[in-house]
Structure formats: structure tokens, C-alpha cells
């Protein structure tokens, strides 16, 4: 495994109206690595992935650096970060509901260079990865199920040639069987060369597929380690308010 980080942050701080929501000295995701970020509600997981892309539905104050392949992209607007190869699949609304699956998959970054370590999946390739989407290719996004939308969200990102993929809570609203399917697909994408930062509240599901796990609490890193190191770490249960996780 190449040890150079594909995605790295230094001194990342995010504040909403004076309240510090995130304060991370450093996070690094190496080539072909699947790093999971877990934590209870309000731990700062979504804030982390959104700030990596400079994207937010609110107006937070963000400081610190975000590096992609060593290049500082902190000053770039979200669409430029996307063109640089950093793709976010947000929680909630994943697809354009008034467009068909086919239209959702029509790449919007046709002029984006493939670049080092970037692979732009063709429509046929994403259909091979998600055969269900091929069956539903003429359906509008609004007619797709939650699982299908999740697949389409990932497929859309793959069409744009990600250098690193950020996934925000892909398990939300999905049946347990579908959660496993989606996360196993993400794992297979990593095995075939993709670099992924996965934010997930479902620790059990996440720990089965990630290489490393970062536990956040109140916007700070509480614990970090490989999946096997973290599997029985009591701090995870504590972070989830003592609940059985």
C-alpha cells in the first residue's frame, strides 16, 4: 500500500455561530484505503465530510487545510474540488429526482481530466456494478427506492472519476441487508483502487468493511486505529452513551 495520503487535513476547525463543531489536528486517508469515521449524533461526522468539500447547507466558518494528493484545495469552491477529484455523496438527497437514472448518470464533468489515480467509470461499468440501476434506467429519481438512490448516488460519483470519495451515512433509511450490500460494494471499489472516507453511524456495519476507524466525539478524535484494534474498544460503546452498539 502506498503510504502517501491521498486526502489529508491539518488543523481543521469548523464553527457554527461561534460554536466549535469540529476541531481535528490531522486526518489522513491513504491510497486505496477505506477509513471509517464513526460517532454518535452530533459528533461532527457530517460536518467533517462537508467541510472537506467546502460544502454546506448552512454557513459555517471553516479554517485549516484540506490537501488532495498534497495539493492545498482549501480555497477552492465545492465544484472545483469536485473537478479536482474529491467527490461527496451526501446524506439524504442523493439524486436529481426529476431526472431519469440515465440522465443522473450523464456525466457533468465531461471536460474533467482523468488525472493521476482517477478512473472515470463509463455508464456501462456502473450498470455492471449496479445491475438494478440498468433495470431502472428510465425511471425518475423520485421513483427509486432508498437503496436504489444510494446506488445511483455512488454511481454518479464514479462517473465523475473520483480520486477520493466521501460517503456520508450511506446506511440511513436502508434495510440491514441493503446496508451490507452497499458497504460491500464500497469495499470492492476500494479493493479495485478507490480511496474512500466513510462516515457512518452504524459502527457494526462500518467496522466490517473499513481498514481504519476514527471515533469522533463532540467534534474531536476520541480514538483511532485499525478495524481489528477498534473492534472491541470500549470507548466506542461509551461514545454512544453507553448503549450496546
Amino acid at each position, binding site marked *: 500500500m502506498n503510504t502517501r495520503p491521498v486526502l489529508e487535513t491539518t488543523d481543521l476547525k469548523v464553527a457554527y455561530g461561534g460554536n466549535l463543531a469540529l476541531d481535528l489536528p490531522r486526518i489522513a486517508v491513504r491510497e486505496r484505503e477505506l477509513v471509517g469515521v464513526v460517532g454518535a449524533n452530533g459528533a461532527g461526522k457530517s460536518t467533517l465530510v462537508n467541510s472537506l*468539500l467546502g460544502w454546506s447547507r448552512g454557513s459555517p466558518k471553516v479554517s485549516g487545510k484540506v490537501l488532495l494528493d498534497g495539493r492545498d484545495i482549501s480555497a477552492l469552491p465545492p465544484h472545483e474540488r*469536485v473537478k479536482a477529484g474529491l467527490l461527496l455523496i451526501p446524506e439524504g438527497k442523493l439524486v*436529481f429526482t426529476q431526472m431519469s437514472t440515465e440522465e443522473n448518470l450523464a456525466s457533468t*464533468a465531461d471536460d474533467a481530466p482523468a488525472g493521476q489515480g482517477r478512473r472515470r467509470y463509463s455508464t456501462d461499468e456502473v450498470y455492471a456494478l449496479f445491475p438494478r440501476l440498468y433495470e431502472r434506467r428510465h425511471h425518475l429519481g423520485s421513483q427509486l427506492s432508498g437503496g436504489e438512490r444510494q446506488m445511483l448516488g455512488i454511481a454518479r460519483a464514479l462517473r465523475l472519476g473520483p480520486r477520493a470519495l466521501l460517503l456520508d451515512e450511506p446506511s440511513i433509511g436502508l434495510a440491514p441487508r441493503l446496508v451490507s450490500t452497499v458497504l460491500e460494494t464500497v469495499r470492492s471499489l476500494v479493493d479495485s483502487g478507490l480511496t474512500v472516507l466513510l462516515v457512518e453511524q452504524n459502527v457494526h456495519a462500518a467496522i466490517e468493511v473499513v481498514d481504519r476507524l476514527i471515533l469522533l466525539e463532540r467534534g474531536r478524535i476520541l480514538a483511532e486505529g485499525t478495524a481489528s484494534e477498534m473492534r472491541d474498544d470500549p470507548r466506542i460503546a461509551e461514545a454512544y452513551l453507553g448503549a450496546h452498539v
Partner: protein
Amino acid sequence: MNLTQQLVNGIVLGHAYALIAIGWTVLLGVARLVNFGHGQMYMLGAFVTWYGISRLGLPYILAIPLAMLVGVAVGYVMQRVMLQLTLKQDLVSIMIVTLGFGYVLHGAAALFFGSTGQILSTPLSMEDVYWGDLWFTYQDIAIVIVAILFFAALKYIIDRTRLGRLARMVAEDPQLAELAGINVKRVYLGVFAFEGAAVALAAALVAPRTPILTSMGFDEVIITFVVVVLGGIGSVLGSYLAGLALGLFVAFFGAFVSPAYAMAAAFAVLIAVLVIRPGGLAVSPGGR
């Protein structure tokens, strides 16, 4: 009463209404924005065309693109000024800013072009066509043909091209569109520039039907409002049909009842339609 003549009048008027409204339709459909300076932009388009022909000596066919270029510039500047409001979708402030812009345009136009009325004569508006009992001008024919071509082209672009797809993505969810690598600010600027060009084209074609004044614009905003809302917000096909329906309604109401109350009656119909079908007359609200 010549009913066929009223039908012709209604068709011409309807295409004129649709053409005047098309810029706002796209603006509302893509950017979810309103522009209450639309009427003054129409006025400016008419006066720039008049200036091009009567002062610069340009042929009509060159005065039209000149008016459209000025429209693009005005639309671009307007959006540039209020880009932050647009991104925040601060509709109340945008309404006030565009209304203010309209008054600035009105004042600037009065200063530059003078406050007296003018006649925008074109080679087409001076050529009458008599066909049996029917009368119209070549200008009327141009309005209908250009409106049909413009709407067909726009419908094709929005439904079938990459540019149209980008516009629809921004229209549905600008923040999600950003995640697809789309420069949303540029799309907003482009949409306003398009609106400026479209309303200038409409003015260059429609304004020769009546005397032009720098104080005009209010009627055009009202007509646009009715067409856009009746057609279903942002629906290109809906706007075309609504424009045509409004034109026919005004022509026949004017002939059978009184032209003085035609617009009031149109608003009564608008209210009824909105009560029965809140999304307008379009097949599917928000459709294309």
C-alpha cells in the same frame, strides 16, 4: 364582428405574450428567481432597437442583436450585483433589488433617450398584409414565427442537451448540482444574461406594434407574471400555451366585452386557475 380577425389578433398577441415571458420562465425555472425589472428591460430593448435604427442607421436585422447584447449586459450586471442574495435565495431582497433596478433603468433610459414617446418603425411593421377580410402585418408574422422557433429551440435545449441538463440540475437542487461539479454561480449569471437577451428580442419584435415610452414596462411585467404562473412555474411548453391562451382570451374578451377590462378578466381567470390547479395549467407542475 369578424371572428377570424379576432382569432388572428389573439394568435399574434398570444405569441407576443409568450415571447415577452420566456426569459422570466427560464429565470424562475432554473434559478427560482423573480425579476421585477423585467418590464424595464423590455422597455430598454425597445429603445435600443429604436436607437439602432433611427440614430445609428442600422438595419433592423442588426438592431435586434444590438438590443440583445445590451440586454445580456444588463442581465449580467444585475445578477452580478445581487449574486449573494441569489445564492441565499433571499427572495424578498431580490424582489426589492430588481424593482429598484427597474426604476434605475427607467431613469437612465429617460435621461438617454428622452421622455417623449417614439415609434419603432421597422421594414416589417410598415408592410400590411390583406387576406380576404383579414388584416395583419409582416411584423405579426415575424412575431409568431420567431416565438415558435424560439420556444422549440429552448425546449430542445432544455430537454436534450448537456446545457439544458445542467440548468435542470441547478433548478432542482443547486447545492446537489455543486456536488456534480457544476459552477452554480456561472449558471445563475448565464440565466440572467439569457433573460436579458430574450426580453430584448421580444421587445425588438413586439414593441413596433405600439408607440414606445421610457415609462412603459408595468404591463409587460403583469403579462409575464400571468403567463408564467398560468403555464406552471418554469415550464417552457406551459408558458407558450399560457401566452397563447392569454392572447386569445384578451382578443376575444376585448371584442365581445371591452378591451378596457380584458386584463382584469385575465386576472380573474388566473385566480380561478390557481385555486383549482395551484401548479398552473402545465401538465405536471414544474414540468418542462
